Every structure is written in structure tokens, then in C-alpha cells.
């Protein structure tokens, strides 16, 4: 078979030029520099991910990224950025990135609880710690992803949070990643949260753009959870221009007898590709990946996950709820790998989508790769319309159709958010869901008048 060398697209050439121009000033010692070089070489060999790669089949980044925008340079703390920060009502340890760069002056560094250390990723990258490249690399199942390689090559900043053994945080760590959105820019940021043994914390990531200009965002977060820890990671991806393109990677490694949950809400965010790479490093751990996608217009949301049961006695649950209207597209690709010696694995994966109209689409692709023989694993994927009998029941009690629909849809989405332990975070998530549904209800009332 002939080897086809793909022609370089304009965006790929621009990215190569940007890396060549920026690499001397990107932070990091020799080890980090090598990590970047290897990652960029990997990207150059493969190019931007495209639909002929199975893991990117429904999100052709090569087509979506016609041009790579210039790299964002420096913190642009515009009034709009400050207004968004003021509007975000969530108590906790607030750490702010603006255009991918840690903004100490906008963060709450006086409020760092005991047992927690915070530094910028740029500072962490030049620190002499030996485990840095191991931490940054994350689970091996993400190693050959070119979206992630680009992040590794070009990551400029982020936050590096360490929670000491036994520390329980009463309030969440809130990482707010805002783009100023004054101009069309590309942003590469990465953060890390290292949670010690027996620690307990909620980590919230908020990704928004304050201005109107479409952004190209490539973000990643590394989370390592220590033995016996209980960590919840909640991500809100919203308030982006319709033409924005975003790749968000989660690299999670779970210790023994730990509980790890991750949840993501995607709404009003243009094109979003989330990829979760999760590895069990210790036995008897429980992990849940959940999410809600609320899509309209020509929005596109892709959730691709790879869960690697490397050790026995791991429990994994995935539950993704998508509500899709307009011409929007939802994608769920879930792969659960059970290695030969990972006996007694208990896995359950579900993706449920409701299509609100013709023209909306959903692609579900659950995959189980099971090499052990004593496991319980299942998956289910549904694509449906709103249940007409449920609607009739609610309308027969006096609820007008839009309100009845909103109630059914809110309940549908809410199931994936129920597990969120921190009440203020759960309320914030559900208030975003309600706002999206209310906007839809208002639109449908206008159109029926």
C-alpha cells in the first residue's frame, strides 16, 4: 500500500510557524523542552486530526480549522473580562487565566487554604521537580492524540495546584479560563491538580469568552487523585462565539480506593471537542464521567473518552445527556478498556440524546474492549424525541407546551448532574441549564405568536 503523505493545510503550516517562532520563549527546562519537541514532531507527522482517524471521525479538525489564529499574547483584562468575573457567582478559591495566562491579580491568592499550594504552570514548568514530565504526560491512552500533542507543544500557562494528604476542602477550587475575545486568537493552556491521599475536593473549570471574537482554544487539565481521595471535577464550557473551536482534554489518573467524578456542561459554545483519558492506577476505585450537552444552531459537541481499567476491582460509570435542536450535532464516543488482569471490573456506560427537531443529529459510538474474563460491563445508547405521552400528561394539568417541554428536558438533563456534591456548584450548573431552556422557551413562544 502506498504511503500517502498528507499535504499540509494552511492551518498546519501556520501552527508550524507559530511553534518555530514561539518555542524559544515558551516556558520549561530541558526536559519540558524535549517533551514539547517530541509532541510537535508527532503532530507534524500526523497533521491536524481528521475524520479518517477513528477517534476523530465525527469532528474533522482539519476542516474546521481552516486557519490557525495567532497565538494570544499576554493578559488582556478588559472591562468585559472583569464583568464576567464579577458575574460568576461561585464561592471558592478562584484562580483566573486570561487568554491562557495566569492572572495573579485577578485571582484569590490570599484565600488559599492551608494544605493547598498554587503556582502558575509557567513557574511549575521551570521548577526542577523530576516528576514533572510524567505528570504532564497523563495516561498513556492519550499519548498519540494529536490534539493533545499540540497542547503539549504550545502550552504557555495554566495553574498547578497541589492538595496535601488528608486535606478536605470545604469550598471548591475554581479555575476560570477566560478569553478576552477582543480579537480572534488561539490559546493553549494546561493546568494540573494533584490531590494527595485521603484528600477531598471539588475542582471547577469554567471556560468562557468575554468578547465577541471567535477563539481557538486548546485546553487540558491533568488530575491525579491520591489513594483514598474523593475528587469531583466539574467543567462548564459556555459563552463562546458560534465560530469558536475548542478542544478540552482531561487527563486523569486515579489512585487506589479513590472516588473520582467528572462532569461537563456544554452550551452556547460553538464547536467543542472534549476528550477524557482516564487510567486506574490503584484497585477498588470508583470513577464517574458525566455530562450534559445543550446544542442549537450549528453547534457541535463531541465527547470522546477512553477509560483504561489497568488494575482489578475498578468501577466506572459514564452518563451523558444531550439535547439537540437546530442543525446541531452531538457526538459520543466512549471506549472502555479492561486489561487482561483487571478482573472484577464493573463498567456501565450510557449516552442518551433527545433530538428536538429534524436536522439535529447525534452520533453514538460506545466501545468495550474487554480482555479479562470476570467482569461486568454494559453500555446503552439512545436517540429519541421528547416523550409525547409525558408532554400530554403535563399539558393536561395546565402547563403550556413550552413549559411542559422545559420541565421534561430539565429533568432529563438533571439526572447527570445529581451526583455533584457541592450544592453551590450543582446549583450553578442547573441555573445554566435552566437559562438555556428558558431562552429556548422564549424563542419558541416568539415563533408561535
Amino acid at each position, binding site marked *: 500500500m502506498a504511503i500517502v503523505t498528507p499535504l499540509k493545510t494552511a492551518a498546519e503550516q501556520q501552527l508550524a510557524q507559530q511553534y518555530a517562532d514561539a518555542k524559544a520563549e515558551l516556558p520549561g527546562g530541558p526536559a519540558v523542552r524535549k517533551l514539547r519537541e517530541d509532541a510537535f514532531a508527532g503532530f507534524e507527522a500526523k497533521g491536524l486530526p481528521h475524520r479518517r482517524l477513528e477517534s476523530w471521525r465525527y469532528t474533522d479538525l482539519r476542516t474546521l480549522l481552516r486557519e490557525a489564529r495567532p497565538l494570544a499574547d499576554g493578559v488582556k483584562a478588559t472591562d468585559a473580562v472583569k464583568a464576567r468575573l464579577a458575574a460568576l457567582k461561585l464561592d471558592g478559591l478562584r484562580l483566573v487565566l486570561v487568554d491562557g495566562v495566569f492572572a495573579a491579580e485577578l485571582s484569590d491568592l490570599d484565600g488559599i487554604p492551608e494544605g493547598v499550594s498554587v503556582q502558575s504552570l509557567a513557574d511549575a514548568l521551570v521548577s526542577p521537580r523530576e516528576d514533572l514530565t510524567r505528570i504532564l504526560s497523563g495516561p498513556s491512552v492519550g499519548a498519540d492524540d494529536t490534539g493533545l500533542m499540540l497542547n503539549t507543544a504550545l502550552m504557555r500557562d495554566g495553574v498547578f495546584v497541589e492538595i496535601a494528604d488528608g486535606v478536605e476542602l470545604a469550598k471548591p477550587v475554581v479555575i476560570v479560563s477566560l478569553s478576552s475575545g477582543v480579537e480572534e486568537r488561539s490559546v493553549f493552556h494546561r493546568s494540573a491538580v494533584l490531590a494527595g491521599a485521603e484528600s477531598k475536593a471539588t475542582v471547577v473549570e469554567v471556560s468562557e469568552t468575554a468578547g465577541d471574537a471567535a477563539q481557538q482554544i486548546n485546553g487540558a487539565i491533568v488530575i491525579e487523585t491520591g489513594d483514598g481521595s474523593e475528587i469531583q471535577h466539574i467543567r462548564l464550557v459556555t459563552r463562546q462565539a458560534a465560530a469558536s473551536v475548542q478542544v478540552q482534554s482531561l487527563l486523569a489518573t486515579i489512585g487506589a480506593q479513590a472516588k473520582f467524578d467528572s462532569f461537563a456542561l456544554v452550551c452556547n459554545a460553538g464547536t467543542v471537542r472534549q476528550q477524557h483519558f482516564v487510567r486506574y492506577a490503584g484497585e477498588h476505585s470508583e470513577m464517574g464521567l458525566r455530562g450534559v450537552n445543550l446544542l442549537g444552531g450549528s453547534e457541535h459537541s463531541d465527547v470522546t473518552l477512553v477509560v483504561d481499567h489497568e488494575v482489578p476491582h475498578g468501577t466506572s460509570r459514564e452518563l451523558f445527556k444531550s439535547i439537540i435542536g437546530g442543525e446541531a450535532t452531538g457526538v459520543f464516543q466512549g471506549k472502555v478498556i479492561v486489561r487482561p488482569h483487571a478482573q472484577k471490573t464493573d463498567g456501565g456506560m450510557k449516552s442518551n440524546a433527545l433530538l428536538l427537531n429534524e436536522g439535529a443529529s447525534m452520533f453514538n459510538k460506545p466501545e468495550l474492549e474487554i480482555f479479562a474474563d470476570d467482569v461486568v460491563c454494559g453500555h446503552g445508547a439512545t436517540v429519541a424525541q421528547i416523550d409525547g405521552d409525558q408532554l400530554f400528561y*403535563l*399539558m393536561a394539568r*395546565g402547563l403550556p407546551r413550552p*413549559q411542559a417541554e422545559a420541565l421534561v428536558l430539565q*429533568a432529563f438533563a438533571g439526572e447527570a448532574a445529581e451526583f455533584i456534591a457541592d450544592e453551590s456548584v450543582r446549583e450553578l450548573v442547573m441555573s445554566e441549564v435552566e437559562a438555556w431552556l428558558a431562552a429556548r422557551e422564549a424563542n419558541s413562544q416568539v415563533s408561535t405568536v
Partner: protein
Amino acid sequence: MLEIRNLVVKIADEDKQILNGLNLTVNDGEVAAIMGPNGSGKSTLSYVIAGKEDYEVLEGEILLNGENVLEMEADQRAAAGIFLAFQYPLEIPGVATMTFLKAAMNAQRKARGEAELLTPDFIKQVNAAADKLGIAKDMLRRPLNVGFSGGEKKRMEILQMALLSPSMCILDETDSGLDIDALRIVAEGVNALRDKSRGFLVITHYQRLLDHIVPDTVHVMSQGKIVRTGGKELALELEKSGYASYGEAA
């Protein structure tokens, strides 16, 4: 007053005609029972009055207090005073019963141009009505009808009927799936709502419900029409003779 004139209805996506020129009047204060064999169109009638979309009305009209309800959506009919107690109440996961009750009561008040209920008043009303029906507080906190027993679901229907205070109540096979104790509680709940300004249409296959909710009139329905009308003694007659002479399918 509910007046149904020459109602002809088919299933929307099929050619199957279910109601074939049905005429029926239920006066204010009257409890009318409709009895009939399986497949005679009893449940279809209740759905068509309440405004379910799966049917197409080919001819006739349904008037509530002189107003044609066929032009209205289901929610508008509810606000106008029609209440259907479902044979199989729907489970709505994720919607707390209290949230649903408040939304329903306020939606109807809004449609009638009334102010929203204040939360303390709402809770007081619900608790009082729930007590009468033996509905535990715990049930009100659970998602609507999810995991409820058959009897609990029917009691929840009567609770909604009491709170929404409709002028025309339709009970579709309310006795199905109830043991005798649950049946008595449900019937007592219904009887407590009997009022000279409120009409009832009680649809049932069996006579036993009518021992507890004693009707003023009994109609026999067969093949999509009312074929006979009489007093409460007609129900007893049917219990003895069965529906054979009215075309009960074997």
C-alpha cells in the same frame, strides 16, 4: 356542562375510526358513568375530551359551558376546567411532585389571569389535601409518580383533581389496579369533591367502582357510540348480564 355532539374520531396516523357519532351530555352536579366492553372507545373518548394529539376529529363538537374545546390545546382545556384522571398516570423522572403541582396550579391561575400562589399558601393547600387522601409527605418529595404503587398513583391523580378544582372531571378506569382499601380511599376523595357546580364522567369496565361512587346516570358505550342510557340500576343489570348483547369482543 359538557355537551358532546355527533363526535366522529379516528386515530391520526391510521384509518381506524374509534368514535362513530357519539352524543353525550353531563350536567353540572351530575355524576355520569360510562360503561362498556373493552375496545368500545371509552379511553379514546377521555383522551379526545382532554386534547391528546394522537386523534383526528372528523365530525362533531365538544362544548364545555357552551365553548367548543376542540379549538384548544390540552393546557387551555385544563385551564378551562377539564381534568382527566389518567388510567395510567405517567412517571416523570427528575421532576419533584411538589415542583410539578406548583407549576400546574400556577399555570392554570396564570391562564385565568389570577396571581401566582404564595409558597406558604400552596404548601398549606397541598398538605391539607394530601392528609385527606392519606398521601405521605415523603411521596410529595419524590419524583412525580416514579416508583409509586398503582394505588399511590391513583391517589396522586385525585390529589391533583382536588388542588386544581376543575369543573368537569373525567376518571378513566380509576379502579384499575386498586385493591379494595385503595379503591375506598380514592372513591372517598372523589365523593368529597362532588358539588352542584362540578360534573363527573366516570369511565369504568366494572360495576364495583360505582358501589363507591354512586352515579346519577349510566351510559353504555359500544362500538364508539352511546347505545343505552339509564339510572344507577343499569350498572347492576350489566354486572349480571355482561356486555354480550353489546358486542363484547370474545
